[in-house]
C-alpha cells in the first residue's frame, strides 16, 4: 500500500476534494445586492459554510495523525487561501475596495509620465510598488492594475507561506506546530491589508527579513551556562534560550550574503511604505536589546537609511503635512481612541462586526500570551516569539496613522501570535483524536469570527460594474481641470490622477442635507472650473453603515442621508442629472451647459 493510499492520508485528500467541489457549487447564484451590514456572511449559502467546515475537518485529521504529511498540510493551507481569500475575486466582477482604484491611478501616472510628484499625494514619496507595477503593466501591455488586482489577496497570502514556515521552523522542529501555526495565521488575518497595496507587499518583506534574522543571526547567550532560576535576575531568565530552539548557523560567506539580502530587503521596505520601516526597526531593536541577534548594529543602520529617505525623497510630504506626522506623537490616549473606541459606531450589524473584530484580536493576543507562558514553563520555546509579538505595540504612542495603528499592530503581531496559539492548542494533547478534536474546534471558532471580521465591510467594499461604468463616464465627459466631488468612498482616481481636482463632502453637509453647502464645495474650484457631484452605491452604503442608526438624532448623519441629500439637490432646481444608472448618479450645477 503506497503512502497516499493509507486511510490516514486518503481520507483528508477525499475531504479536501469534497470541500473544494462544494465550495465551487456554493458560489453560484450569490446575490450581492442582498448583502446586509454584516457583510459577506449574510449572503453566503449554508453549503459554503459546510465546505469550509469540511476543509477544517480535513486539516484537523491530517494535523492530528501520528505522522502528519507536510505536503498534505501545505495543500490544505493553499486551499484555504484560495477559497477564502479568493472568494471575492470569484463572485465579484471588479477588484474590491475603493483604495485599489486610487493605487491604480498612482501606477497609471508613473506608466504615463515616467515620474512621481510627491506634492500630488503622500504615496508618491514611497512609490516602490507602483514603479514595479508600472513596469509590469507596460511590458505586459495591460490596461492597468485593475486587470489583475482582484487576485492580489490570494497571491500575497500564498507568498507569506514560505517566510512563515521558515520563521516557525526556527522556533521548533515539530512540523505539526509549524503548520498549525501557518494555518492559524490565515484564519485570523482579518485586517484585510493584503489587497493590492504597499502594505500587502511590505508584510512579505517584513516577514522575510525577520525570518532570515531569526534563522541565521540568532544569538545564544547561555548555551553552555544555565544557572538556576534563583541565581538569575528576571532579565537573564528571559534571555535564556529554550531547549527546542533550532540552531542554524550559516557559513561565514553565506552570512555576509544574507546580511546583504537583509539590507536590500530593508531598502525595498523604505522605498515602498512609510510605516513598515518603523515596525522593522522596533522589532530588530527588541531583538538587539534582549541579545537575540548577532547583528547589534543593524537597527542603527536601518534608522539611518530610513531617515535619509524621509529627509530627501519624502521631504516634500513631510514639509506639507507636519501635523499629520507629528500631531499625534505620544498622544497615547488619542491614538488608542482613534484606533478602537472612535470606530465603534454605525448600524447595529456594523457594530456587531466591530465587536467581533475587537474580540477576535483580544482573544488572539491573550491566547498567544498564554501559549508562550505554557510553553515557557516546559522550556519549549524561546523569548523570541513573544518579543516579535510585543515589539510592534511600541509604535502605538507614536502615531495614530489615520486611526489605523491598532490594525497595523495586529497585522505585524499575527505571525508570532499564530505560532504561540498553535503551541497552546497542541500543548498537552498527546493522543491523535484529542489533537485533531482541539484543532478542529479551534479552527471552526477562529474561522467563524474571521469571516465576519474580514468581510464585514463588504457591502461598502464591493464595486459593481454599474458604479464603475458611471465613474468611467465621469472621466470621459469631465474636461481636465474639473472639480469632482463625492464622499470619498468611491472607485475614482484610477486614471489621469493629476488632471482633476477632488473635493470630499463633509459629514456636516450630509447631516444637514445642506444643498447650499454642496454648492459652496462645488464652487471652491473657481468660477471657470466645471464641477461634478458623484453619487455611487458604495458611497451610500458607507454612510448607512458607518453613520447610520435607526434613531438618528436630528442634525447628524443617518441611514439614507446621502440619498435624501441627492434627492433634495435635484428638487432644488440648482442641480441636474448628467448621468444615471442603477448604482451611480452624476449631478452638475443646473447652469452647466
Amino acid at each position: 500500500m503506497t503512502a497516499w493510499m493509507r486511510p490516514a492520508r486518503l481520507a483528508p485528500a477525499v475531504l479536501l476534494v469534497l470541500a473544494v467541489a462544494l465550495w465551487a457549487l456554493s458560489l453560484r447564484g450569490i446575490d450581492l445586492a442582498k448583502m446586509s451590514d454584516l457583510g459577506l456572511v449574510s449572503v453566503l449559502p449554508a453549503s459554503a459554510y459546510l465546505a469550509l467546515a469540511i476543509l477544517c475537518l480535513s486539516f484537523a485529521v491530517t494535523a492530528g495523525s501520528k505522522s502528519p504529511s507536510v505536503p498534505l498540510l501545505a495543500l490544505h493551507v493553499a486551499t484555504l487561501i484560495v477559497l477564502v481569500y479568493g472568494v471575492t475575486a470569484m463572485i465579484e466582477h471588479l477588484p474590491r475596495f475603493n483604495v485599489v482604484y486610487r493605487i491604480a491611478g498612482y501606477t497609471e501616472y508613473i506608466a504615463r509620465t515616467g515620474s512621481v510628484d510627491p506634492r500630488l499625494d503622500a504615496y508618491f514619496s514611497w512609490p516602490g510598488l507602483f514603479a514595479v507595477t508600472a513596469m509590469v503593466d507596460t511590458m505586459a501591455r495591460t490596461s492597468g492594475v485593475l486587470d489583475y488586482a482582484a487576485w492580489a489577496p490570494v497571491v500575497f497570502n500564498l507568498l507569506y507561506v514560505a517566510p512563515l514556515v521558515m520563521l516557525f521552523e526556527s522556533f521548533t522542529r515539530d512540523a505539526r506546530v509549524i503548520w498549525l501555526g501557518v494555518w492559524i495565521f490565515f484564519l485570523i488575518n482579518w485586517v484585510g491589508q493584503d489587497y493590492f497595496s504597499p502594505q500587502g507587499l511590505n508584510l512579505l518583506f517584513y516577514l522575510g527579513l525577520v525570518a532570515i534574522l531569526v534563522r541565521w543571526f540568532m544569538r545564544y547567550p547561555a548555551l553552555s551556562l544555565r544557572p538556576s532560576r534563583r541565581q538569575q535576575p528576571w532579565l537573564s531568565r528571559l534571555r535564556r534560550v529554550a531547549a527546542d530552539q533550532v540552531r542554524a548557523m550559516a557559513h561565514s560567506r553565506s552570512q555576509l550574503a544574507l546580511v546583504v539580502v537583509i539590507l536590500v530587503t530593508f531598502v525595498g521596505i523604505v522605498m515602498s511604505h512609510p510605516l513598515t520601516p518603523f515596525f522593522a526597526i522596533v522589532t530588530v531593536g527588541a531583538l538587539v536589546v534582549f541579545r537575540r541577534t548577532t547583528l547589534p548594529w543593524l537597527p542603527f543602520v536601518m534608522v539611518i537609511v530610513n531617515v535619509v529617505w524621509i529627509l530627501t525623497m519624502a521631504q516634500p510630504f513631510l514639509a506639507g503635512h507636519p501635523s499629520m506626522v507629528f500631531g499625534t506623537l505620544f498622544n497615547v490616549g488619542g491614538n488608542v481612541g482613534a484606533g478602537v473606541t472612535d470606530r465603534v459606531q454605525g448600524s447595529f450589524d456594523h457594530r456587531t462586526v466591530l465587536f467581533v473584530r475587537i474580540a477576535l484580536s483580544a482573544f488572539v493576543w491573550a491566547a498567544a500570551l498564554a501559549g508562550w507562558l505554557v510553553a515557557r514553563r516546559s522550556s519549549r520555546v524561546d523569548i523570541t516569539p513573544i518579543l516579535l509579538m510585543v515589539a510592534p505595540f511600541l509604535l502605538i504612542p507614536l502615531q495614530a496613522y489615520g486611526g489605523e495603528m491598532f490594525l497595523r499592530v495586529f497585522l505585524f503581531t499575527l505571525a508570532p501570535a499564530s505560532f504561540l496559539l498553535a503551541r497552546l492548542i497542541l500543548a498537552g494533547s498527546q493522543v491523535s483524536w484529542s489533537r485533531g478534536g482541539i484543532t478542529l474546534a479551534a479552527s471552526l471558532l477562529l474561522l467563524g469570527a474571521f469571516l465576519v471580521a474580514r468581510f464585514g465591510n463588504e457591502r461598502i467594499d464591493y464595486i459593481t460594474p454599474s458604479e464603475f461604468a458611471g465613474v468611467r463616464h465621469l472621466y470621459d465627459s469631465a474636461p481636465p481641470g474639473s472639480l469632482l466631488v463625492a464622499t470619498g468612498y468611491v472607485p475614482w482616481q484610477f486614471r489621469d490622477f493629476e488632471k482633476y481636482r477632488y473635493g470630499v463632502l463633509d459629514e456636516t453637509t450630509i447631516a444637514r442635507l445642506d444643498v447650499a453647502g454642496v454648492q459652496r464645495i462645488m464652487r471652491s474650484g473657481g468660477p471657470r472650473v466645471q464641477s461634478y457631484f458623484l453619487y455611487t452605491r458604495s458611497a451610500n452604503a458607507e454612510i448607512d453603515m458607518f453613520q447610520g442608526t435607526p434613531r438618528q438624532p436630528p442634525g447628524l448623519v443617518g441611514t439614507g442621508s446621502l440619498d435624501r441629500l441627492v434627492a433634495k439637490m435635484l428638487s432644488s432646481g440648482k442641480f441636474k442629472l448628467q448621468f444615471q444608472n442603477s448604482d451611480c448618479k452624476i449631478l452638475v450645477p443646473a447652469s452647466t451647459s
Partner: protein
Amino acid sequence: MTPRLPGAVPIAATSAVAGIVGVLAPLNPTLRAGFLVAFVATGPGFGLTGLIEVRGIAARWTVAIVTSLAIALIISTILVMARVWWPPLVYGLLMAATLGGALAQAVVIWSGRRGAEGMNQQGPP
C-alpha cells in the same frame, strides 16, 4: 563556495521563460501580467541567491522571493526618482540578473563536479 541550491538554476531558467512569455506571447494581457509577476517575484532572487548556503525549501523560497521583489522595486524606484524611467531597461536588468546568476551558478556547479570527478579518478593515496 559550493552551491547548496541545486534547484535554483532550473527555477531561475523557468522564471526567465515566464518573463519572456509575459512580454512576447500572444495571450490575454492579464495572463501576460501573471507570467511577468511570477518572473519578477522569483527570477532575480533565484538567479542571485543560488550560491548562498540555504537549507530547507521554505528558507530557499523566502530568500529568493524577498530578494527578487526588493531588487525589482529598488531598480524601478531609482529610475522613476531619477526621471530616467524606461520599463524595458528595468525588465532587461532583471532578466540579466536572472540569466547571469543562473549561468554563474551552472558554471560553479559544473566546475565543482569536474573537481570532484578529478579527485575520484586520483584514487586513494
